[in-house]
Each structure stands twice: as structure tokens, then as C-alpha cells.
């Protein structure tokens, strides 16, 4: 009974990603999109927090929003999978529910 969570806020601006990861269950998926993709970067003040709190969930990032922001694919932290919109749709369909952290 897994949930797909989406987060669209930069973790440098507010607590939404932290709150999401604090409520996600083992085996859930978390997709970072829009400004949320900044939370997927390696070598930032948030990288370790995201890796630590996200250890029990599957982390994804929306590739279109990564490229739009000029983030090189090599800067996406290890263990975070980049997906396109069709894969996003597929994830929403295969989970039991979607929770959008706004």
C-alpha cells in the first residue's frame, strides 16, 4: 500500500521536503519536481539530510525540471532516479495514492 509523494519546494526555502520525508512510509516514493528539484542536488547543505531522511523511501526527480534549472545531471545526488513525465504518470498509476506536499 505505497504512496507517491510529490514535493515542489526548494528545501532551502521551507520545510516541506523535511515534513514529507518525516511522514513518508518505508517503501513509499518521493518525487522532487518544480523548485523541489534543488533538494536532489549533491554537495549542498541539505544533501545529507535528504539522503538520511530519505533512506527508507525511493527518491526520484523530474528530469524536465532539473534541466530547466540548469542543473547538470551529474549534480543529481546518487540514489536519486531521474524520470520523465510518462514515468511520473506510471508511478502515480502504480502507487495506491498520491499525496502532493504543497
Amino acid at each position, binding site marked *: *500500500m505505497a*504512496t507517491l509523494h510529490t514535493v515542489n519546494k526548494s528545501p532551502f526555502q521551507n*520545510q*516541506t521536503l523535511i*515534513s514529507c520525508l*518525516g*511522514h*513518508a*512510509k518505508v517503501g513509499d516514493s518521493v518525487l522532487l519536481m518544480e523548485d523541489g528539484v534543488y533538494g536532489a542536488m549533491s554537495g549542498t547543505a541539505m544533501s545529507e539530510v535528504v539522503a538520511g531522511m530519505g533512506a527508507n523511501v525511493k527518491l526520484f526527480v523530474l528530469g524536465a525540471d532539473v534541466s530547466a534549472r540548469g542543473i547538470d545531471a551529474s549534480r543529481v545526488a546518487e540514489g536519486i532516479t531521474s524520470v520523465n513525465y510518462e514515468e511520473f504518470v506510471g508511478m502515480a498509476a502504480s502507487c495506491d*495514492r*498520491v*499525496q*502532493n*506536499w*504543497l
Partner: protein
Amino acid sequence: MSIVKKFLYVNRKAPYGTIYAQEALEVVLIGAAFDQDVSMAFLDDGVFQLTKGQDTKEAGLKNFSPTFRALGDYEVTKLYVEQESLDERGLTLDDLQDIQWEDEDDDYAEKPSIIVVSRAGMADVMADQDVILSF
């Protein structure tokens, strides 16, 4: 309509600074007519929506906080409030409005609508839903 789904309205934003809290309440009141299994979740800044003593006169805004106390009439009786979110903001249950519902099956006994849950408990509530609408 025979389908009954579990609906959760997630409130994570403070009132007044933005319209989300107020328009969320409008959804809940309308949604109550559809005979679904409805719950509301208040966490992060959303717990500020339920505080006592809101007085919007000087700010020139509509005070919608009394409307939370009408939810029981609409059979919305499960308001989950997260303990950690209260703690982080220096709030206790006493700082929140007393929100109750009348149990018709129990001689109209008044019962509290606010259910304080831990973060883990809130995660369980969320994971138990069919539809989650976030505001």
C-alpha cells in the same frame, strides 16, 4: 452514489496570510454533502488555523475560525492535529478552539473532534486514505 472513499484534507498552511485555509474549509463544507469518510489533518503551520481568540477586525479580514466549530453539524468529526507540530510552535491543546460534535446515536452527547496524534500516527492516517487533497 454508493462509493464511499476515505478523503483526507491536509492543512499545512497558516490562516490569513494566504487564502488556502479559507478555501480549504469551503471544500470541506461542500464535500460533506457527499457522504464520504472525511478526515482533516492539521500539521506544520496548519495547526495555527485552529487557535483560539482570532480577531481579524483591525486587519480587515473575514474571520473564518468560528466555522471550524460548525464542522460537527456537517458530520466532519475527525480533525487530526499533530503533536510535534504543536510542540514546535509552542502550542498545547489548550491554545486551540474547543471543537465538538454531537453524537445523535448517543443522546446528542458532545464529543471532541480534535484528535491529537504523533507524527508517526499522522503518517498512519495519511497512508490509510483513498484521496488526499492538500491545501
